[in-house]
Each structure stands twice: as structure tokens, then as C-alpha cells.
């Protein structure tokens, strides 16, 4: 993570590639292109932090958004409503390494069914559920690349998709929540298995094993044990001498020429001064929300509806994944705040089952969800329990060490009316039109979340929790997984990019991040985003070498 002496490319001489964003996809893209001899400038809107700046400071990172986005966003549940600030939002990290720095590091592969669900189940009225233009088999080598180049700890579980190589590292040590989960799940006839995590369980590629500090979710890892882009691929890209990572650089527009080809990008530097970086090609890896915003804001005479948007689908089919929890308190201390967030999962509900009466699938994990002191005390009192005074304080004292959460993760159907668009009025600190989110979970998504919530409660019941509770499943207003908004496909009318991530409308523009996903998976999309980036990076480099860009 130490910054390598990296080249400083001039603004006015076109580099081979500008990559917008340095997160899960952008970091890998930088590595794949630069190690194949291509010159790369990565423009990252956030700062570059060193491991020493990743403090154990809950106030700063959880309450004050120390490394997360602060751009204003408006939200509405339907296109008929006026979007407002404060009704909902989006969460992603804003620094070199992007959200791969602050994520929880759950690393589920998608399964073969995720790529062909429309064929298997048939289409669902009112949704854009279609097959991917690629199969699991085509992506598998790149999942394996992620395992070995990024670093994943785990062991194959029941129902796991085929893999060409074993995990490079064994699972992380089990925790009390994992033990409780495993025992109760076995009673219920489920199939619990160690959680695959993008965290080192032993020394790996020059990085130390996880120190079990517990500050994964929402924090950067000062040890470099979390397999972020920042700790893994970005240093390799910089070592080539062909990759410059330029932090504090917010791209506002991708520019095009008369022929409809991309010529470079306009961005604001750290002094909020406008700069223009020329490039032979641009890869947008800015996340499912920011990528859409950038393309929609890159209007021109040739592209009046936004860049690469002849299909009208840029920003459409936004998917958050479903999520639901049940919190339980146990007799003895678990101390879930120690160690990684998740150690055991069960995937017994992965496939959509017509017998349930609705579309959807998911998995469940045992985790420390809100077990750091402040967040715990602010938010996790059982329903109808006093929230201040002596009884409250006694509860905190009793519950903190004894609490665990069972978390259900599930599908989101692609629905065109769930989307990222440009707010007609609101602008960010640079004067750039802001994101407007329109989102309302499909009824089947809510039913699936409710179904998993019942399983989460069942688990606590079987495990003998002293008390357990859930909040009712409600339509989501807050997105962390930002998926589907520039979907890939073979047909330029019904997708934004082709199967190699090239924009159908613009030959030298590529898009790769959560926006590329055609379906949502069952949660935990980062593994798939990274696999797509490895695959896309390899193909794009080939195109560049063959003069096909």
C-alpha cells in the first residue's frame, strides 16, 4: 500500500486508457492493462490514504462518513413522486481503492443459475429478468484469478459452483456466532459452511494474516489483510511504471469527437480546478450509481440522452440486493466485535423455488452486524425496551458481548423503474448535476426477504437465544450494492455494453463495475465485479494490442 513512485502523465498527450474509479473493478482494470504494457491514468475522486490513516475510530467512520461519499442525492420510491434529499441514499467509499477498502469482504461466487435464470424460470412480467451474455463457465477462470490474485479464504461448501482451483487460503478462525449458527443450522437440517472472505487467514502475497481486530465493515484495514484493490492490485499496477493513480480527481464528463469516439475526460482536481486528460480509450469503473451519473451528464449533440445511452438503459434496472436481519442475545459472551464480521453461512435457499410462490433466492450468515460500541448502543435495543436510564444501561452492559445477528441476503429483480437518473435541480459541490435515485423493491423481493427473515428467527430459536427480534421488512431506501445500471448484453437495444464491456454505441468506451451485472446474485456482488474486471481487462488489452479499439 506504500505509494510506488509512479509516472506523471501529461494531460495533453493521450494515454492508452483513462480509468474512472479505483475500486473493486478500477483497481483490477489498472493492473490488467498496465501489466500488459499499456499506459493508464486512474482518476479517483477520493484521497489516497495510507494504512496509518485507517484508524479504529467509530465516530469518524460510522457517524461522520470519514471515507464515504458525501455527494448529495435525492430519493423517491416511484417516478410519479418528487425526489427529495434525506428520504434515502447511497453508500460507497470515496478513496483510492473505493468500496473494496471499507467493505465487509464477504466473497460469494455467483452460481451457474445466476447467469441463466430467465431461461430456467421464464420471464417475469414487469421485470427485465434476462440471461447474461456470458455463462458461469466463461467467468470461472476469472473467479479463480480473484481467489489467487486478490486473496480469498474459504473452503468449498455444499452446492458451491465448480471451481478449477481450491481456495488459496483456509477459512478464518470460527467465532462464537459461527459456532452457534453451525449447531442450530445442523439441527434445522441446513448446510452451514465456513464463509468465503476476501481477508487473509495466513501470510499471502506479502501480506500478513488477519489480526482479528474486528474493524472490517466500514473501515480500511491498517494491516492490509483485507483484500482491497488498494492492498492488492493497485501497487502491482504502479510498479509497472505505466500506471498513474491520480487521487482527488472527480470526473464530470467523458468527452467525444465528431466521429462519436471518446477523446478523454474533464475532471476537477484537488483544488477544484478543471482539467482535461486526453486518452485513446476510457474505462468507466465508478460504481453503479456514479457511472450512470457520469454517462448521463456526458451529453453532447451526438449523444443527446447521455453517452452510450441509445438504448435508454443507462441508469435503469438498479438493484440493491435484499437484506434482512434477526438479532439475538445469548446466555454467555460471544464478543462478536472481535475478529472478522462473518464466519459461517448457509445457502440452502439459493435457487428460486416455485413452491414458495414467488421469485427469489438467498443465503444467510451469522455475523457481528452492529457490535461496535456506539452503533450498538444507539440502535440495537429490543423492541419496547427502555432507550435511556438505568434499565437501558443495564441492557447495554448485558447485551453487548452476548449479541449476534443472523443476516439474510437475497435477490433484487431488475425493474426499469428502479434507476439512477439526474436530479433536475440539485447540484453537488462542483456544480455537477446530482444523482436522483428511484427505487421500490419488487413485491417478490420483499417476499423473499420476509421468507429469509423467518429463517433467521428460526435459527435463533433453534439455537436457544434468550431473546431475539427483527424489524419488519420494508421497501429499501438506501443502497450499498449498486448493480445493473449499465447491463451487458448482445443486443444494443436492450443493453448498454457488450459481453466484453465495450459500450455498444462508442467503440473506445468501456464500462465495468456493479453496473455491468445483468442480475443481482444473492448478495455479496464484489467477487463477481472483480471477476468481470479481470476478464474485461484481459479482453480490452487484447483489443488494444490488435488495434481494435
Amino acid at each position, binding site marked *: 500500500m506504500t505509494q510506488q513512485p509512479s509516472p506523471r502523465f501529461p494531460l495533453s498527450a493521450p494515454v492508452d486508457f483513462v480509468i474512472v474509479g479505483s475500486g473493486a473493478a478500477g483497481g483490477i482494470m489498472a493492473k490488467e492493462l498496465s501489466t500488459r504494457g499499456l499506459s493508464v491514468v486512474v482518476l479517483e475522486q477520493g484521497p489516497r490514504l495510507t494504512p496509518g490513516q485507517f484508524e479504529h475510530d467509530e465516530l469518524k467512520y460510522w457517524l461522520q462518513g470519514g471515507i464515504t461519499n458525501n455527494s448529495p442525492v435525492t430519493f423517491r420510491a416511484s417516478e410519479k413522486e418528487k425526489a427529495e434529499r434525506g428520504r434515502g441514499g447511497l453508500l460507497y467509499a470515496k478513496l483510492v481503492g473505493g468500496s473494496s477498502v471499507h467493505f465487509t469482504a464477504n466473497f460469494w461466487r455467483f452460481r451457474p443459475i445466476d447467469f441463466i435464470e430467465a431461461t430456467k424460470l421464464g420471464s417475469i412480467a414487469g421485470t427485465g429478468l434476462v440471461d447474461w451474455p456470458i455463462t458461469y463457465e466463461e467467468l470461472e477462470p476469472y473467479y479463480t484469478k480473484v481467489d489467487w490474485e486478490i486473496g480469498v479464504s474459504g473452503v468449498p461448501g455444499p452446492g458451491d459452483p465448480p471451481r478449477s482451483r481450491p481456495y488459496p487460503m483456509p477459512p478464518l478462525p*470460527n*467465532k*462464537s456466532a459461527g459456532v452457534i449458527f453451525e449447531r442450530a443450522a445442523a439441527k434445522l437440517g441446513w448446510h452451514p459452511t465456513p464463509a468465503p472472505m476476501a481477508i487473509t487467514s495466513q501470510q499471502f502475497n506479502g501480506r500478513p494474516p488477519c489480526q482479528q481486530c474486528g474493524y472490517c465493515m466500514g473501515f480500511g484495514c491498517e494491516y492490509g489483510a483485507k483484500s482491497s484493490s488498494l492492498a492488492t492490485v493497485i501497487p502491482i499496477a504502479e510498479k509497472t511504471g505505466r500506471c498513474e493513480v491520480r487521487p482527488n480527481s472527480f470526473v464530470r464528463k467523458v468527452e467525444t469527437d465528431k466521429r462519436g469516439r471518446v477523446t478523454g475526460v474533464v475532471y476537477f482536481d484537488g483544488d477544484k480546478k478543471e482539467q482535461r486528460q486526453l486518452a485513446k480509450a476510457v474505462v468507466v469503473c465508478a460504481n453503479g450509481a456514479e457511472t450512470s451519473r457520469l454517462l448521463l451528464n456526458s451529453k453532447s449533440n451526438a449523444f443527446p440522452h447521455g453517452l452510450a445511452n441509445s438504448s435508454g438503459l443507462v441508469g435503469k434496472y438498479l438493484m440493491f440486493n435484499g437484506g434482512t436481519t434477526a438479532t439475538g442475545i445469548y446466555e454467555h459472551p460471544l464478543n462478536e466485535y472481535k475478529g472478522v464480521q462473518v464466519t459461517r453461512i448457509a445457502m440452502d435457499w439459493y435457487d428460486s423455488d416455485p413452491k414458495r410462490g414467488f421469485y427469489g433466492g438467498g443465503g444467510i450468515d451469522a455475523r457481528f452486524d452492529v457490535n461496535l460500541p456506539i452503533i450498538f448502543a444507539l440502535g440495537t435495543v429490543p423492541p419496547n425496551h427502555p432507550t435511556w*436510564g438505568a434499565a437501558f444501561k443495564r441492557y447495554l452492559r448485558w447485551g453487548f458481548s452476548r449479541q449476534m445477528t443472523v443476516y439474510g441476503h437475497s435477490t433484487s429483480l431488475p425493474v426499469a423503474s428502479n434507476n439512477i437518473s439526474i436530479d433536475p435541480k440539485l447540484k453537488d459541490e462542483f456544480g455537477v448535476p446530482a444523482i436522483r435515485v428511484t427505487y421500490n423493491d419488487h413485491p417478490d423481493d420483499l417476499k423473499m426477504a420476509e421468507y429469509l427473515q423467518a429463517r433467521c428467527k428460526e435459527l435463533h430459536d433453534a439455537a436457544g437465544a434468550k431473546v431475539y427480534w427483527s424489524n419488519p421488512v420494508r421497501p429499501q431506501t438506501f443502497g450499498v450494492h449498486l448493480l445493473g445500471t449499465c447491463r451487458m448484453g448482445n443486443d444494443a437495444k436492450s443493453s448498454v455494453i457488450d459481453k466484453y464491456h465495450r459500450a455498444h454505441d462508442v467503440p473506445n468506451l468501456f464500462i465495468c463495475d456493479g453496473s455491468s451485472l445483468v442480475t443481482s446474485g444473492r448478495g455479496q456482488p464484489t467477487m463477481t465485479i472483480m471477476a468481470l474486471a479481470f476478464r474485461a481487462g484481459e479482453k480490452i488489452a487484447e483489443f488494444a494490442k490488435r488495434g481494435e479499439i
Partner: protein
Amino acid sequence: MKPVSEWNTSRRDFVGALAGVGAAWIVSDWVAVESALAHATQAVAQQPPPAFAVLTADEAADIEAMAERIMPSDETPGAKEAGVIYFIDRSLQTFSKDQVPFARAGLKDLNKRAAKRKAGARFSQLSTAEQDALLKEIENTPFFGGTRYLTIVGMFANPSYGGNRDSIGWKLLGFEPHAAHKPPFGYYDAQAAKGGAKA
């Protein structure tokens, strides 16, 4: 407060684990982590407590009394011992600056209610039973919500922010602020590791 190096019993293990790794970047940056923590410790250790930057003595007494009812001192220390009021004052000077007028308006209303209960009294001069009754009246107001929020944050945030003195909040929860931990972490994984009873 104990110096950070005493909390961090695992640090030696951590550096040991690095020895064979050759991850030079971590070792060099670890110095920065340590020095930041040391600085924070020193800031908290300053005695006597600093004067209030924003709140008047009366206002501080009222808010401290509220914090004390939210997180009372009983068989374990509460908001008072944790110095939550210093955290709140500092937050009103810095990241909660825009809340000052709002807090003052809330206090004004609170003291109006206090004076109704006991002529001429401020909230801080009421008995704890009277204070509880009064807070019950306003417990759904944004003012109470905001004070509860700052009290909790001041109780459990890093001591470097001015509250959570002597890690009183963390000790209440049983939270050990070590830079690293080792399994077993809790009762159930310890039991499983020993090959204990399987359910």
C-alpha cells in the same frame, strides 16, 4: 487512563507475525498509527478538565444532568464519570456546531418546564426523580433525541474526543480496545475448540 501500549498486549505478536512477511509498508506505517494513538491518549490525560468552549456553566450543568439520567451512575460509572459533558461541549464547538441554537432552544424549554415544577429552579436543580419525570415528558422531542445521541456517542467514542474517560463506556460494555485479538473470542468458540458439547 492506561497508556495505549498497555492495552495493546497483542502488538508484539503482531510485529512478530510480520517478521517473515517482508511487508515493509505496514511496519513503517505502524509508527504513524502508534503516534496518533499516543497523541490521543495524552490529550485525554490532561488534567484538570478544560473549561467549556461553548456551553455556559448553567447550560453545562443542565445538559450534564440530562446525560446523567440517560446514562446514570449506579453500580457502574455513568455519563458523569465518563466526562460526557466535555465531549458534548467539544462536539458543539466542532462537528455539531450547527446544533448550538437548537440545543439552546431545547434547554430554554426544558428550564421553563423545570420552573413550573419548582419555582425558579433550573433542570439541574431538580431531584433525579423530578428530572426523570420531566425527561419522560420530552422524550420524543428532537432535543431529547439529540442529547441522547450525543450522550451515547460521548460515552462510547474514542476517548480522544473528550468523553469515555478512562474507557468507562468501553469497560461498561466489556469492550477491549486492542489493536488485535486472538481466538477464542467468546464462550462458544472456546467451548467448540475444546471439543465441548455439541448440540
